[in-house]
């Protein structure tokens, strides 16, 4: 996991310092470094940002006022020479409030704080057990404060709804807080990501074409990416054929092959769509 960061400070050297500190920490990627809130707003419109390093006292628009008015607020660490704004930072649910001069030791503490908050959020929303794919035939998902057992074979397809996913079974659905990409990693290899917003259970597919796949009379679109189209049709065709002929050895070999290619497709699909997501 790489966390995507954005630095906002009107002073060159102050931005340079955060940039240097960030370079020391592997999992953090600097997306951009902005001299004003206006510049930052443009970046936030086109890029997915997980963490802001935000100065407060800046020309025209203060960091705190800028942050207050963001519709999608990333996590924020304030960086300022002003001791007296700490209470504002607290009100805005900041991860941390760093006072200049910002030493690496103190910076690192803020980073650890950010990371610990991220894992708490993840364990809250993750299914409590994360079995290795294809060895177990069920997983547990957290729903309405309960751990619900989910038999993987019973899943028809999964639909992404922003921060949530909707898991479609034959006779019901589960809506849980989860990203489709992360959830996909928990599933067995017969689950194929056919679209930015859909994962299908290949065993349940009854028909497919270039436009989409059909599961129990429901049409699911196939992603528009060229690479996706090309490989998917080819691979699904041989995959279904091998299943159909009940040749377990061929099927197993095919599954491995399909999943390795699917991983490539998925990663290209994700990088393909991330530009247009926000």
């Amino acid at each position, binding site marked *: 996991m790489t966390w995507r960061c954005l630095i906002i400070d009107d002073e060159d050297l102050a931005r*340079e*310092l955060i940039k*240097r500190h960030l370079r020391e920490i592997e999992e953090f990627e600097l997306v951009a470094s902005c001299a004003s809130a206006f510049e930052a707003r443009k970046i936030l419109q086109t890029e997915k940002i997980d963490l802001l390093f935000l100065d407060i006292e800046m020309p025209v628009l203060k960091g705190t006022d800028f942050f207050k008015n963001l519709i999608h607020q990333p996590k924020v660490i304030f960086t300022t020479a002003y001791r007296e704004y700490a209470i504002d930072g607290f009100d805005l649910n900041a991860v941390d409030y760093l006072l200049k001069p910002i030493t690496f030791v103190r910076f690192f503490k803020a980073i650890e704080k950010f990371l610990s908050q991220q894992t708490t959020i993840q364990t809250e929303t993750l299914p409590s057990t994360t079995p290795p794919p294809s060895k177990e035939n069920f997983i547990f998902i957290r729903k309405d404060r309960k751990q619900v057992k989910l038999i993987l074979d019973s899943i028809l397809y999964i639909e992404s709804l922003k921060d949530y996913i909707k898991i479609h079974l034959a006779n019901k659905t589960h809506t849980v807080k989860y990203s489709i990409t992360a959830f996909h990693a928990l599933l067995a290899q017969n689950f194929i990501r056919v679209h930015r917003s859909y994962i299908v259970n290949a065993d349940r597919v009854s028909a497919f074409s270039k436009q989409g796949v059909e599961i129990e009379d429901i049409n699911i679109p196939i992603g528009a990416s060229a690479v996706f189209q090309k490989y998917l049709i080819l691979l699904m065709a041989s995959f279904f054929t091998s299943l159909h002929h009940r040749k377990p050895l061929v099927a197993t070999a095919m599954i491995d092959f399909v999943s390795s290619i699917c991983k490539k497709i998925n990663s290209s699909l994700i990088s393909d769509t991330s530009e247009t997501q926000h």
Partner: protein
Amino acid sequence: MNPHFLFNTLNNLYTLALQKSEKTPEVISVLSDILDYMLYRCNEKYVSLDKEIELIENYITLEKLRYGKRAKVSFHKSVNEMIKIAPLILLTFIENAFKHGVGQEINEAELNISLSSEAKNILFTIRNTIPNSSSALENTTSSIGILNVKKQLELLYPNSHELKIDHTERHYSVQLNLTAQ
């Protein structure tokens, strides 16, 4: 002096040190000169104008480090070396001009300072561009720093000073005439 200025400067200094920049020793020396002057050397009621000029130059060096190309600063001086002045009064106006004129400007700000003396008279003017944000002007005229300086001037230069604060649409300017005591 504004403590935020000090902490911001230390933050920049920390960056320069990490960068192993050649500027690091100079900045440390400038900063320590400023602190030395403010803490130990200006306890007299009046100090030599020369020393005040040195302080102003040092201060400008550090502000330029903060704002880089955003600040276009000029400082012209033609003074009689022997003349004396009440300490830190001029600096308040300069700090104020940087804070509101440069600190609040997204684009390039201009700041012109001039200091001259003739016989017992000192003439100081400072002029800065007004940033495009509307709130900036209010801040400058009602700043606590400026109010304090006005009180100080009443005490140190009774009936021997003249302070004119003025602004046009684009510029804010201060003119101070002092007659040495």
